[in-house]
């Protein structure tokens, strides 16, 4: 109960007028960068960082983390209303959120998303509160083999549980890996796969790929299939919002499962993107209504949203306790911590109690502020849905272009983005899954590094992945997920078919 006492102390710090004001500002800016594709939480937080140098560390982290919550919520708004994921972690929300909004139920879709997201975030914060110091001790034993095993698990679940043709999934995943490898290799320092273009040394940013694949690609699909944005009422129907929120407990099992997946992926640095995809994939597999997935199934919104926010929140746990960021945004925040003169790691819990518990308490408050603010600002974004498609299309092209350019002030990125747009259209048209490609770009490098560091440790023997119980369990679980469809098919063939159906 020592943790609860510390938390109460933290609330005392977070509940000041100054800090509540910082939360409001942070969340609003976060929603803005979350809604604008190309300006994601990592960019937003890094752009805000210089402003925090003069602040108290606890005020600074409250501002930055509130921006993170705002961005997580804002990313879902455009996913649902425009089918443009504002953040890579809200890509999976487009699968069912967008069809539901298109069918004339945007209020239901948004309320389902925010309700599940709030539940996921709450699960993440409770987890941090209860286990912050304890998890730090356990995770101290994590080495490169364990990290690789976790990444392997995430990738295996794609090929095994994605539902797309396995070879197409594999090609998509491998292209992502290859793109992640472009640029400077972090282990050896050598330059790879630049194809003779010097500027490619900086690598291919996932933002550029996401802008093209999802922004431009979807746009091309939309015009080709003669899709029109229906004029939807710009009002958020509050009665519908409350009715939806009250109905969420029906998806209790999905919420709990997704929050658990999210927490796990947040702590082991799989990140929110991997968590939301994995949760969506598993929900699609397990749900009795799996045929409805992709057509506006509520559980298809619940699963990625709860996991996304659970992972985004719990990603701060390893950052604080170990100095290992669980997501890109957490990495930027960790940079801030060091600039403010703090030392991320287990000692933070001993030396900087006010900072750690003030932050944790602010996470409860910040998420409440985020849910309220995002609901209040939705009418502004929903109003954009009434704008005719021939106006929206150029706006999306311009936003994607500017977004791709602003990643590293490079025109080459704009060209790449257009290329990804054509590829995205072809892939979507021919049922290649896009999600594995993006995920592989985001964490492919880290997975490769973890593998090579493991090999260095074991002097080239794969036995290191079976040396300890934890890593062996993770690897076997990944292999099982990979082979699951094949096994199920074989069992199905061996079982006698039920004859004579009535």
């Amino acid at each position, binding site marked *: 109960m020592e943790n609860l006492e510390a938390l109460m102390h933290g609330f005392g710090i977070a509940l000041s007028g100054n800090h509540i004001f910082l939360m409001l500002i942070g969340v609003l800016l976060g929603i803005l*960068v979350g809604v*604008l594709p190309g*300006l994601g939480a990592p*960019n*937003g937080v890094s*752009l805000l960082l210089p402003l925090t140098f003069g602040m108290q560390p606890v005020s600074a982290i409250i501002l930055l983390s509130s921006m993170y919550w705002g961005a997580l919520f804002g990313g879902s708004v455009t996913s649902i209303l425009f089918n443009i994921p504002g953040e890579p972690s809200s890509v999976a929300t487009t699968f069912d959120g967008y069809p539901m909004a298109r069918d004339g139920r945007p209020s239901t879709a948004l309320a389902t998303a925010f309700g599940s997201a709030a539940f996921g975030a709450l699960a993440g914060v409770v987890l941090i509160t209860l286990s912050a110091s304890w998890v730090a001790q356990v995770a101290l034993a994590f080495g490169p083999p364990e990290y690789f095993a976790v990444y392997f698990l995430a990738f295996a679940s794609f090929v095994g549980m994605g539902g797309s*043709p396995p*070879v*197409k999934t*594999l*090609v998509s995943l*491998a*292209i992502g*890996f*290859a793109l992640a*490898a472009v640029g400077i*290799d972090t*282990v*050896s320092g*050598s330059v*790879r*796969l*630049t*194809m003779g273009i010097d500027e490619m040394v900086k690598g291919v940013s996932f933002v550029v790929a996401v802008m093209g694949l999802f922004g*431009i690609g979807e*746009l*091309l699909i939309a*015009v*080709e*299939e*003669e899709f029109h944005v229906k004029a939807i009422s710009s009002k958020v129907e509050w009665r519908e919002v409350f009715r939806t929120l009250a109905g969420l407990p029906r998806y209790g099992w999905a919420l709990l499962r997704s929050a658990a997946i999210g927490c796990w992926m947040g702590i082991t640095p799989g990140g929110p993107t991997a968590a939301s995809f994995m949760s969506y994939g598993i929900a699609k597999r397990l749900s009795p209504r799996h045929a409805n997935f992709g057509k506006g199934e509520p559980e298809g919104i619940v699963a990625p949203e709860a996991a996304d926010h659970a992972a985004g929140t719990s990603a701060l746990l390893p950052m604080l306790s170990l100095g290992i960021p669980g997501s890109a945004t957490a990495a930027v925040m960790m940079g801030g911590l060091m600039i403010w003169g703090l030392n991320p790691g287990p000692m933070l819990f001993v030396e900087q109690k006010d900072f750690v518990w003030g932050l944790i308490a602010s996470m409860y408050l910040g998420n409440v502020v985020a849910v309220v603010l995002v609901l209040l600002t939705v009418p502004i974004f929903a109003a954009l849905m009434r704008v*005719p498609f*021939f*106006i929206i*299309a*150029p*706006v999306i*092209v*311009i936003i994607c*272009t*500017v977004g791709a*350019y*602003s990643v590293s*002030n490079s*025109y080459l990125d*704009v*060209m790449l983005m*257009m290329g990804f747009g054509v*590829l995205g259209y*072809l*892939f979507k*048209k*021919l049922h*290649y899954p896009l999600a594995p490609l993006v995920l592989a770009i985001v964490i492919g490098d880290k997975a*490769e590094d973890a*593998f*090579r560091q493991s*090999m*260095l440790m074991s002097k*080239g023997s794969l036995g290191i992945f079976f040396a300890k119980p934890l890593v062996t369990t993770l690897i076997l679980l990944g292999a099982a997920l990979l082979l699951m469809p094949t096994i199920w098919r074989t069992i199905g063939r061996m079982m006698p078919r039920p004859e004579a159906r009535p």
Partner: protein
Amino acid sequence: MVSGRSLEAATALITGVFGAAVVVSSLDNGIGWSAAGVESGTFPFIVGLVILAGSVFNLVQGWLHARVVVLGPAELRRLAILFVPAAIFVGVIPLIGMYPASAFYVFGALAWHKRGSLLLAAVAAIGAAVALYLIFELTFQVSLPRGALGTLLGF
């Protein structure tokens, strides 16, 4: 008109060529095991082989299970109406800069669809450029490209 077969084949060719390029390029970095551990070309090499093999598989599959026409003239026309102006917009950015390019793009799109007056289109075009400036240049301090025109005018 484009058949499902040729679309599948074209996509498999694109991924296959990319895979081959990755394989060839990774050979420069060295593959296999060295004193410094796994060499930096190994992982891309394997990934490239997977892409190449997968593309061949998809090519054969796509060819065998060909579907009828997937893109008729009407679909192709609609695709072109979106893609051609977008490509021109991106193409002229290095010449005239992001702000004029965006303004012309918005103006062109609105004028083409002939809804509302040209005045409205002009207002929307200037509005788009100003909005870009306010959000990116001022708020987030992302400097957008000025293009050759901007350099000429001294921005």
